[in-house]
């Protein structure tokens, strides 16, 4: 049997069910693995070893008592933006240093209810603002496939931890690609459900109308399971869509014979590197071989997507982040009056990228500029949504690269925020339109750096997306590939 830390979530559940290992064994294996590799990866911001083991033993007791749970005994780690009762939740920021969450996010509570062991806080770009994890105020995360490259962002810790076998699955959040882009860079599966599918209650907001919680896993079936568990209406989130979770595990194996797969012509007009394009085109051939029919579609407003996204996201963020003022929780730097205290606390507590976006968002909402920026952006957003509505009349799913290139090096784009923003070009439209999207591994650029295939489905048709992803995964050999780090023996003995 493979090492416990190399098992997928489903394989772990099997092993636990068969009794070949306990939750405590699995949890201990991950804790050891984290201890062995995380000084190189930097995926974890916080880990309570004793609490994790205690929770694992509780799960084992639950199993012994004959109690079930779809995730019983499986350790999972959370992006540091999700509130887990009793754990810190810094959002990668200094301003929330010392804050301990007093409640569970709904998604977390649902994982817990199914028996998951919630351990560890995963590194991220501060307040989910970034595409490289270089904006974490604590330390950067390194890409397990190449420690000189970024893992992507903002959920870089969540992606890298799964890729480096530090956890079998994790949660992240995706506002403009923050799950799919790092999943692509780190060679794992990452899902952004449709807006409203998973409750946002307990997810520290970056941009409320765009944020969604989603899983990172080693295979498509694991992502389907976690999405099912977390989905469904929540009375605590008015924007969650009422009704039960979709059945994904049951439907994803139905194949894609006769599926029409849309290829947006605007995405394939330059702008992506040759290796990425070759891998994505090969993936399309593979889908064709599985019985799908590729069709060219048009998303004519794509060129306005980045501008639209950065207006709406920053506007919402400027208000969402206003609550971090040092009054009720987190870091406080005293001042002579409240305004002075706000200025000092926020000046010291926020990093440059966060400040840049707060200022941008404040500007676009200001009197006299609102119509020209925010209001116009909302109109363009409606057009982008309509582009997808039109496109999905002729296809069941859309396939694109997740990112224009494989992982880039540290410092490569930090000097030019616009270049950094443009790396989100293939992912932001999904959030603007509220549809679902995911990234599945589709090969390696230059044979070493993972590349992700992005699959998009209509809003609340995660089933379409998972059918494509599962069929593709089963037909290709990318699943189970692991970074060289995994076979690094230098640490354990000699």
């Amino acid at each position, binding site marked *: 049997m493979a090492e416990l830390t190399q098992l997928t979530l489903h394989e772990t559940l099997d092993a636990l069910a068969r009794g070949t290992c306990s939750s405590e064994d699995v949890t201990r294996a991950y804790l050891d693995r984290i201890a062995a590799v995380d000084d190189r990866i930097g995926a974890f911001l916080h880990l309570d070893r004793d609490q994790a083991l205690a929770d694992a033993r509780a799960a084992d007791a639950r199993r012994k008592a004959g109690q079930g749970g779809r995730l019983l005994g499986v350790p999972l780690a959370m992006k540091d933006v999700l509130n887990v009762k009793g754990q810190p939740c810094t959002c990668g920021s200094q301003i929330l240093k010392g804050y301990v969450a007093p409640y569970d996010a709904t998604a977390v509570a649902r994982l817990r209810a199914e028996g998951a062991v919630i351990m560890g806080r995963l590194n991220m770009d501060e307040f989910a603002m970034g595409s490289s994890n270089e904006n974490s105020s604590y330390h950067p995360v390194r890409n397990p496939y190449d420690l000189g490259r970024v893992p992507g962002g903002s959920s870089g810790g969540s992606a890298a931890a799964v890729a480096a076998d530090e956890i079998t699955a994790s949660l992240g959040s995706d506002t403009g690609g923050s799950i799919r882009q790092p999943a692509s860079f780190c060679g794992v599966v990452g899902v952004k459900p449709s807006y409203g599918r998973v409750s946002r209650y307990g997810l520290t907001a970056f941009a409320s109308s765009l944020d969604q919680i989603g899983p990172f896993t080693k295979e498509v079936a694991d992502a389907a399971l976690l999405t099912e568990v977390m989905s469904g209406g929540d009375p605590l989130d008015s924007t969650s869509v009422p009704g039960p979770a979709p059945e994904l595990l049951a439907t994803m194996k139905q194949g894609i014979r006769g599926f029409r797969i849309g290829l947006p012509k605007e995405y394939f007009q330059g702008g992506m590197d040759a290796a990425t394009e070759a891998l994505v085109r090969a993936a399309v051939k593979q889908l064709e071989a599985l019985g799908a029919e590729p069709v060219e579609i048009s998303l004519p407003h794509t060129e306005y997507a980045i501008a639209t996204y950065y207006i709406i996201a920053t506007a919402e963020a*400027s*208000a969402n982040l206003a609550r971090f003022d040092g009054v009720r929780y987190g870091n406080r730097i005293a001042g002579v009056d409240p305004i002075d205290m706000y200025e000092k606390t926020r000046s010291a507590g926020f990093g440059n990228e966060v400040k840049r976006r707060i200022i941008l968002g404040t500007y676009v909402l200001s009197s006299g500029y609102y119509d020209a920026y925010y209001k116009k952006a909302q109109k363009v957003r409606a057009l982008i949504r309509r582009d997808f509505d039109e496109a999905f009349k002729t296809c069941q799913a859309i396939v694109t690269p997740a990112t224009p290139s494989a992982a880039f090096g540290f410092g490569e784009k930090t000097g030019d925020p616009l270049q950094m923003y443009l790396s989100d070009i293939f992912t932001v439209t999904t959030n603007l339109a509220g549809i679902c999207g995911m990234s599945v591994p589709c090969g390696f650029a230059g044979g070493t750096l993972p590349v992700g295939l992005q699959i998009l489905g209509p809003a609340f048709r995660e089933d379409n997306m998972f059918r494509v992803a599962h069929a593709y995964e089963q037909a290709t050999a990318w699943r189970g590939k692991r970074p060289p780090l995994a076979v690094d023996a230098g640490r354990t003995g000699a």
Partner: protein
Amino acid sequence: MIASIGLEVHVQLRTNTKMFCGCPNRYGGEPNTHVCPVCLGYPGALPVINAEAVRLTVMTGLLLGCRINLKNKFDRKNYFYPDQAKNYQISQYDQPLCEGGQLEIQLKDRAKIIRITRIHLEEDVAKNTHFGDGSGIDFNRAGTPLMEIVTEPDMDNEDEAFAFLTALKQILAYADISDCNLEQGNIRCDINTSVRPTRESPLGTKVEIKNMNTFRGAHRALAHEIQRQIREVQRGRAIPQETRRWDDDAGVSSSMRTKEYAHDYRYFPEPDLLPVELTQTQVDTWAALLPERPPERRERMVRDYGIPDYDAGVLAADRAIADYFEKAARLSGKGKAVSNWMMSEMMRLLTATGQEIGAVKITPEALAALVALVEAKTINQPAAKEVFAVLFEQGGDPQQIVQDRGLVQVSDTGAIQGLVDQVLRENERSVQDYRSGKEAALQFLVGQVMRISKGKANPQLARELLLKAIGS
């Protein structure tokens, strides 16, 4: 010079829970005990609209004749202040729940219509307390459903503004929309005032006075502010657009901020909430449950019970008092008599003891029974007053009280004749006075009969017998 006054009245709604979370909407309590991640603005917490608050706001709109916007939405109003957990307030900017509408106020010589611009729903802020060495914030109040009623600048002076506030409070209390307790801050208002030379001139520059907690304070502040503005204009000075603070103890206002420092609230639609969509059927259902408004009730009570318009106005002003009156009046069938008791003894004792009508021991049934005893001449008026006082203090059955206290009126001619004879014997001087034309002497003699009967004699009968004995 003519003043123009517009009001922005903030009303805390009477709901079980807060506007956007499940915390109790209750005044007081240990600081920061009615709080949760939502009303404390914790990371990740999300608002959920309180449907009851929406209903109460729509009810208010209907009572004030507003247009109900079936489709409306919430927005974020951004500004930093320590009493605001999120540093934005969830409010309604360009699509409020209610628009248009009016309220009629009673002036000394006439009625006047004050137009309502809009009514929207928002959340109240926390309460700051300043100590010697720092400040504390109590978030118990944060998130209380707050309805803002905005008027047109239709009021000409402080008396009209006062009348508006009073009439509005009456309606809100009537429909159980708010507890309307001013001491607890249930109703607060901001006042906008400007002055202009004549009614034909365009409105002058408006000055806003923030956060008035009492109607009398608003009245005083307005009286002062109007005079201040008139003086400024007469001295040839321009009125700057500004926000002022009223110091009720000192009786002066001072500038808080001028236009250059006005907030840019950067309103934008609240992305955490979906737009509110009501159906006409739903609004119609609520409309059918609207209570009768005070002015209509007053008219109806005059018709139904034959009581004077003035009395009906006083009784109708308070829903609980009007309800009490109507119940007693219906039971007794003697509306006028019940009204007299309400207007005199009841009001007097309520004021004297500071009690609410809902808490009094004398039930409408007891009052009706008391009226019946008087009507049947079982007891006389002085005895009835005594019974009323006992009922008010202790409750109980009037019949029983009359018996226990031996208050049954003596209407037996023989018995009273004896008393009359005794009084005539002992008061020859008064008899002389009466005979020489002093009418008042008769009343004195009646009083003497009542005295020696210990109040039980039928005064009517005593008077008749006295007259028979000494009259012409």
